[in-house]
């Protein structure tokens, strides 16, 4: 979904901003929409957003970089998020994370060389009563153990 960024970033950004700028406090919804469109927030879209919302480019840059969700580069084909928060720690999330990292051969915030999987930490998916939990491309998984984590990695590798 995010591999088709071409020269029309500005035009597609403008279409999104134009449609959404009437909302109260439109910047975050716009950035979410842009990330949904491109898979990340391209540098080339920032001047368009700034101009249309009457902000400085620095302000837009400041917002984009403040939030963990917004990326300045594409992810792999799949995004695997592992919860690292306390409830998951209490049920062995650290061991699950170590296993997943080893299986993928990457650390958090990295993408496998074949472009299949990006691994990200997440701090709580609200599934704390059935920990450890993970999210693969928006699908939630709970009660992970070594076997389930291996299966998840296999699914992500597809």
């Amino acid at each position: 979904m995010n591999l088709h960024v071409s020269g029309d970033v500005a035009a597609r950004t403008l279409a999104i901003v134009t449609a959404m700028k009437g909302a109260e406090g439109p910047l975050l919804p716009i950035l979410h929409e842009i990330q949904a469109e491109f898979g990340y927030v391209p540098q080339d879209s920032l001047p368009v957003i700034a101009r249309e919302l009457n902000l400085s480019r620095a302000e837009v840059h400041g917002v984009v970089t403040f939030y963990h969700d917004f990326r300045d580069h594409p992810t792999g084909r799949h995004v695997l998020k592992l919860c690292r928060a306390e409830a998951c720690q209490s049920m062995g999330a650290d061991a699950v994370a170590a296993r997943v990292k080893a299986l993928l051969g990457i650390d958090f915030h990295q993408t496998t060389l074949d472009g299949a999987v990006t691994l990200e930490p997440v701090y709580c998916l609200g599934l704390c009563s059935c920990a450890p939990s993970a999210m693969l491309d928006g699908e939630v998984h709970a009660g992970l153990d070594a076997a389930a984590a291996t299966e998840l990695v296999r699914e992500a590798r597809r």
Partner: protein
Amino acid sequence: MTVKVYVPKDAAALALGADRVVAAIEREAGERGVAVAIVRNGSRGMHWLEPLVEVVVDHERIAYGPVRAGDVASLFAAGFLEGGDHPLRQGATKDIPFLKQQTRLTFARCGIVDPLSLDDYRRFRGLTGLEKAIAMAPVDIVTEVTDSGLRGRGGAGFPTGIKWKTVLDAAGPQKYIVCNADEGDSGTFADRMIMEGDPFVLIEGMAIAGLATGATKGFIYTRSEYPHAIAAMSAAIEIARREGVLGPSVMGSGRAFDMEVRVGAGAYVCGEETALLNSLEGKRGIVRAKPPLPAHKGLFDCPTVINNVISLASVPIILDRGATFYRDFGMGRSRGTIPIQIAGNVKHGGLYETAFGLSLGEIVDHIAGGTASERPVKAVQVGGPLGAYFPRALFDTPFDYESFAAKDGLIGHAGIVVFDDTVDMLHQARFAMEFCAIESCGKCTPCRIGSTRGVEVADNIAHGVEPEKNRELLADLCNTMKFGSLCALGGFTPYPVMSAMTHFPEDFTPAPRVEGGGMSETEKLKGPASYFPSIEKKYGQPIEHWKAIVRAQEGKAHMQIVAFLKETHGLGHGHANALVAATLAENA
């Protein structure tokens, strides 16, 4: 005859395979030529039984759980559609002790109704609170909420009615109701459950808040990590608008109120109310100095009520049943009920709504049933990542705002996370600092710098570097953060750190443990470990990264793994050898 079967669509149930169970039931029913009508309800909150499948037999709901897709054929064979016996049969849902002992006021409908059926909602006393509010003067609605004793369920515990009164009295052409659904605390999921399981109750609560204060626009600010809650909430708002519950004339009252869902972008600090307001405005989620209070100058500088999901979702029943009804539950200055979220290493995890006042020990040992690992409980973190760790010695603490504050803790959003005796409390203290460093908005120095320094000091203690001096330094740093930070992120991070150090001092004295413990592996480690700094420097990866890679090769011989590291990852022989020796020694 069509049999009604309930399979939750709550994220916890989905994460445990509820959709696969639904598919299996549909397939099996089709093959057997049986008519079933599947309702996707919210969760009852008994998460160890999820996916919890309920079948309606003689107007009673019979529970089966935890059901996996592979169990479905045997359930049909056992005649579960008629309530037949099966190893997964839990009996009538309402009689399951975990549920039966609760006082469900805010969560009265959660798990019972179809979350997106307004008819269901009305059938279970929905909208009666709003109807009563429409007939009341704004000031009387505020008085009702004040008299109920309801306090902010987000954690701060500020009286909700007083907040509303301030906004009612504030002048302004535009006022807002903002629902803080940025539930980022580990161990909490009450907001998520109510948004997924009974979204109309939040809509009703916000509409009542609007009528009470003169606000005409509401925002629910929730997390991008909650896609299912976002979907349920947005769909419910659509329905409410279509049915005239929201819009230019709320239920024909002639008074306007409408709302929308806004999604954060992965910043924990946006759960702090002023950072949340900045984020809603499209800015960096930086904390604002108070005053001015949001009630005077909140969203877009307009008077704004900002309340937690559970506070707002508790309002409809207060208006419906009256302030006295609600206030009669609870103890001391903590009135009403609190949805306790039991999480972490427990047998019976889930949501337990009850009047304030249960002891922590009752919750952990009896309701939660102890640890899932069957090991002794060592520590319980109450109130999320900024909450204190409680040892067994403090298990007599009653669950209310004041009692926990008296023990240097907080109930926060009422999440409790249980740890067994394998937990290293120094590691947990370090994590609290690390988390604060990752999530700090950067506005104030004690939080921004202090958290990073805190990680370093914790590491020094762990490495046995002047441990006594560094423990003092850590306590001093916590003191600075507690009193010098602008908001609860920096201000409360000391709670987990200090409680860990106070109640579990043995975990903060690693140096004597090494010498006196007779751990011969540690001696061996000294050799390979001496390579670690240069390994980290040369290859740019932390040692843990390499250890994980070595562990994944388990089963292979030492020299095979060394060869693997050299060939696949380009490590030198000495470095590879040191890593393998150190990692395998840990497992020995």
